[in-house]
Structures are given as structure tokens and as C-alpha cells.
């Protein structure tokens, strides 16, 4: 063997772990797989159901009705000039995308152990495909929101989005990164410690109440104890929800510092998730 031959190894398989090995080149090579997974998820979810994609409409609508009855009618939370139903629908639509990404990716390793145990492809394709296929669900739910938006406009409510709407794509990315980051972390840890899976279910529903989904941040400041109110407003998720409502309904507050803060947090969450995910993917099959 000549010394030259030594230098030309295409890749190496070893136990070495690189923390931030995104391996973009390989992900790019498997881009067709990503697309096919997304397509599979979308086309197969509602096969052999009667209502099909209608389920996407029903869940946010019913939740909004309940929230309006409980929080705004019973609990008399003020939503300003915005109709409470529309206010809740906006919050829930955005929140749903985050939870779909989070819960969808939080069992990546366990639910795909069958495939992962038989064949190699960049594992990160799986959570990525979940995030992307959930975009479609988000799109449909956004459509209902727009329909009700128009309905209330015709009813004579004073509603107007503002220029911050241009930041909308950034908000989607932030939600996706946050959901993906947390989901990847949880999914990596559940390969060894199953306890976390139980946690995810109720943590998500509890998290919603401290993420300013059914109430505006201003109400939290007014009615909650100071420490709790601080917690809610420093929660990056409430920043996202509040920001989303601000840009479409022109209600609540927006600050650039809050925006940048949220942006950084979501990137950091994603990177931490990715690092843990990369550490796990090499040998999770031995412990799952």
C-alpha cells in the first residue's frame, strides 16, 4: 500500500462523537428521502378516516370555543378590541405548530427503532421531516384563522395586521427550531430513560398555560404575582405567541429586544438538541 492511499478514505466509522457535526453534505444527498418522508406523512395520516383533513379544522375550533367560554366569559380576561374567539384561535394556531413539532420529534428514536436498526441514513432526516410535514397542517389551520378573520372584518370589527407581519416567516422558523430542539433532546434521553416520555404528554399541556396562549401578556402582568408574570414574559414561547398575535391582530406588545432574545434562545435550543441528538444517534440502538 502506498502512503497516498491512506489519505483518500471517504469516511470513517468509529465511536468518536463530534458535537455539532451537522453533516449537511450527507443530509443534502438524502434530500429525496426527506421529501418522500414528508409526502408519506401527509398522505397516510388520514387514510381510512371519514373526516380526513377536516380533523385539522375541528381541533383548534373546539379548543378556541372552550377557551373563550372559560377564560373570557367565566374568567373575564380582557382581550381589548379583538373578539376573544379570534384572539384564542390565533394563539392556538401558533401553539399547535410548536407542539406538533415538539411531540412529533420527541419519540423519533423509539418509534423509528425498527428502521434505524436496519439501515443507515442521517438520522436527523426524521425529525426534520416531521417539522416540515407539520407545516402543511399549520397552513390548513392558518387558513381557518384567515376565514374567521375575514368573517369578523365583515361583521365590522376594527382589525388590521401591521407591518411586523413581514417577520412571520422568522416566527415560523423560531417555532420549528424550538420544537425540534426540545423534541430532539427528549427523544435522545428517552432511549435510555423512558420516564421522560410520560412527562412530555402533560408537560406540553401545562406549558401552554404559562406561554400566554389563552391570555395577553398585559393581563398576566396585571393579575399574576410578579414572579410568575416575569416567568411568563421571559418564556420565549409566550414571546412567540404574543408576537404572532401582535402582527396579525395588532394587539399586545412587541419589542425588538424580546424578538432578538427569543431568536437567540430558539437557535441555542436547537443546537443543544442537535448536539445531544448527534451523540445519541451512533449507538442508541444498543440501549433503546
Amino acid at each position, binding site marked *: 500500500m502506498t502512503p497516498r*492511499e491512506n489519505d483518500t478514505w*471517504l469516511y470513517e*466509522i468509529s465511536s468518536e462523537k463530534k458535537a455539532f457535526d451537522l453533516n449537511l453534505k450527507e443530509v443534502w444527498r438524502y434530500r429525496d*428521502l426527506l421529501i418522500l418522508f414528508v409526502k*408519506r406523512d401527509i398522505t*397516510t395520516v388520514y387514510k381510512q378516516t371519514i373526516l380526513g383533513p377536516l380533523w385539522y379544522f375541528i381541533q383548534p375550533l373546539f379548543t378556541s370555543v372552550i377557551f373563550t367560554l372559560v377564560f373570557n366569559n367565566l374568567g373575564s380576561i380582557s382581550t381589548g378590541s379583538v373578539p376573544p374567539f379570534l384572539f384564542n384561535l390565533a394563539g392556538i394556531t401558533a401553539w399547535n405548530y410548536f407542539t406538533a413539532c415538539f411531540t412529533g420529534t420527541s419519540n423519533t428514536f423509539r418509534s423509528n427503532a425498527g428502521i434505524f436498526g436496519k439501515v443507515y441514513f442521517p438520522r436527523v432526516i426524521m425529525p426534520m421531516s416531521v417539522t416540515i410535514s407539520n407545516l402543511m397542517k399549520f397552513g390548513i389551520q392558518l387558513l381557518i384563522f384567515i376565514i374567521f378573520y375575514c368573517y369578523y372584518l365583515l361583521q365590522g370589527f376594527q382589525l388590521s395586521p401591521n407591518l411586523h407581519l413581514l417577520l412571520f416567516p422568522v416566527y415560523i422558523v423560531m417555532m420549528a427550531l424550538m420544537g425540534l430542539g426540545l423534541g430532539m433532546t427528549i427523544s435522545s434521553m428517552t432511549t435510555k430513560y423512558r420516564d421522560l416520555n410520560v412527562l412530555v404528554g402533560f408537560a406540553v399541556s401545562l406549558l401552554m398555560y404559562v406561554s400566554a396562549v389563552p391570555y395577553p401578556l398585559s393581563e398576566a402582568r396585571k393579575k399574576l404575582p410578579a414572579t410568575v408574570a416575569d416567568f411568563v414574559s421571559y418564556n420565549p414561547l409566550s414571546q412567540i405567541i404574543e408576537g404572532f398575535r401582535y402582527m396579525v391582530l395588532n394587539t399586545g406588545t412587541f419589542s425588538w429586544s424580546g424578538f432578538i432574545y427569543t431568536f437567540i434562545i430558539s437557535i441555542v435550543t436547537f443546537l443543544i438538541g442537535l448536539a445531544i441528538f448527534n451523540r445519541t444517534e451512533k449507538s442508541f*440502538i444498543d440501549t433503546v
Partner: protein
Amino acid sequence: MIILKAENISKQYRLGNVGTGTLSHDLNRFWHKIRGKEDPYLKVGAVNDRSSKATEEYVWALRDINFEVREGEVLGIIGKNGAGKSTLLKILSRVTSPTTGIIKTKGRIASLLEVGTGFHPELTGRENIYLNGAILGMTRAEITAKLDEIIQFSGCEMYIDTPVKRYSSGMTVRLAFAVAAHLEPDILVVDEVLAVGDAEFQKKAVGKMQDISQGDGRTVLFVSHNMAAVKNLCTRAIVLEHGKTVFEGDTDEAINFYIRNQNIRFQFNSENRKKLSNDIFIENIRVCNSMNEIIDTALSGENILIEFSIANLNNTAPIHVGAGVYSQDDEQQFHCSTEVLDQPYISTKSKIIAQLSIPKWPLTNGHYYFNFYLRRNSELMDHIVQGIWIKSEKGDYYETGIVPSWNKGFYCEFEWN
């Protein structure tokens, strides 16, 4: 050119229940790591020997495996169940990483540990070809280019736009293998996926495997315990035992080495058994000579009696029994079944004694084993692989007092006029 090189590959597994004490071991590892010390659990670990009692918590499934593969070579990896073949395969296909050591490769590896990975029952055959192909590492364009060929190879043209959940299991396997057979990686890692489908399709599959390895000059790593397939396909082989390489070299020599170390038992042994019912199964088998004495050596020309004791509770359906004789390297020699004679056993008794008589034992020198099966209403009820071994020696086949001189093949009756 060396295309793949494995250096000191070892893999350690934890025995017993993973989960109990995992956290404490993880913390201990972490504590050693931050002090810059080596993983304390790498120093312990028992040799991978399934049958001995576990004395330590960790086991080495593979220990210091080294080998090189040249381009265009077909390397066979052989060994008993539990010798570490599957672990090595998993490492090669990047499903899991080695505990220590490194594998360097110059080509893209595609692995076939299973056919049909990722098939989705709700998708049609065509959609599944794309999905499965992409999972195995093909791009959309590559699949499109080969789509017609794949569909044709699978023989499922008619159902290609029907969801796979409506397929028979055989059709699913054919479609899956068709996709796998059209993979074109630099290095192909294959597990024993050949043993699928009906006889016609198996032939097709083996043919395709031979095309891949010989015709196209592809590098293949083939893991199997089917010696006949290894002999056919491989140019070189390594033998694994208890997680270590015990032999590396020429295929024939490797197979001989492996066979010498095989576990040959001359008594009924149902270790490799697939029993599908408790109502009807093979209880015991004896091999006797014409005097009804149990033997472990058969002389050519001798009258051999094989006696099956079959437990037959609550049933009167016709029962078919069969015995196949195989050589040490898994080549089938001959087969004796009640089906070809159309003589099923019909009995209401709870125990049936079925006697197979072979009037003139036709084989020469060597070790042979029997596979046995039992069918009720043509449904397989019991199947035993390597149920009993027999040693065969040359004898006075032609009853002339002259022992034939040849050592290979069969004896047959003949006449000269």
C-alpha cells in the same frame, strides 16, 4: 486497491437488564472522563460465549477484529449463531458504532440487513419503491431510471398501484428484494436475505447476487451460515468465533475450518426447531441399522431405518413427514418425504411411529445431517434443522466384497451387459 479496512474493531454490550444501574454507570464513566481517565468499563467484559454462564456484567460481542477488503472482492463472513456476525454487520452498516476501533472506507456502503425496511402498508407498490429505495440511499432520479426494471424483476406489474397492505407476504418480499437488488453502491453488505420467497424467486435472487458480485465487479461483504451460498459467491472468507477472527483466507479453507469446529451431534437435537403446535410435533428420532440397533455411522449400501416418534393429540387429519439429507457445507443430497409417494399417515392414536427405510445408503465418506419436517393438511407444523447428524463411511455397496475407491458423490445401481 483496498477499499475497506477494519482496524481493531471491538464492541461491548451490557448483559442483563439495561436500565438498572445505568445512571450510576453513566455517572462513573463521566467522572472518569472529566479526570481524563479511560472508561472503567472498557477493561472488564467476558468473552462472547453464549452457552457459558454470565459472570460479568459486560460482554465483548466483538474483540479486535481486523480485516481488509479489496475492490471487487466478495468477502464471506461465516460463524455460528452468536459469533458476532450480526454485530459486525451492524457496525459496517453504521447502525451502531464500535466501542473501540475504526473502519475506514473509500466507497459508499449500502447494507441489506433486511428487505423492505420502511415499507408503508398504506402506500402503493410504486410509492414504496421510491420510499424504500431512498431509505437504502438511492436518489429519486436513480430510482426513476430503474423503475421499470425493478417492477419487472418483482413480477408485480399488475398490483403496482395497489396499496402494499393488499399484497400477499410473498409479493411484498419480492417487491422489496427487487428494490434491493437494483442498489448500486460501491460496497454492498448483505445478510442472509436470500432465504426468502418461493423457489423460483430464490433462484432469481441468487442469480442476481452472482451478477452483482461477478458481472459488475462490485465489492460485497456477505454474511451467512449457508456454506453452499458462501462457496458459490465468495472469493475470500473470514471465520468468526466468540467475537474473534479465528480464520481468514481462501473460501474453501475457511469453510473447512468452520466445519471442523462445528458442533456435530449424533443424537436427536431439536435446538434449531420451529414448532408451530403443541398438538402435533416430532418427539424423537432414531437412526438404526437393519438389526434395529441405534447407529451413528452408516456404511454405503447398508439398510438404514429412521424412526420418528410423533405426538399426535386430538386429530385425524392426514400427516406428511419428510427428511432431507445435507452435507456439511449445506448442500442438499436427497430428500425422502411421504408427499412424493402420496402416503400420508392417518391415525387417531396419540402417538405415531413413522418408519423411513432407506434400503441402500447411497452416500460416501463424510458427515451429513438431516432436516425434518411435519405437515398436517399441507400446513407446516414442525421443522427441525440439523435434527441429527450421521457419519457416512464407504461400504460394500455392490455386495461384491469390493469397497469402491471414490470418495465423492453418490453410489447408484447399475448393470453392464
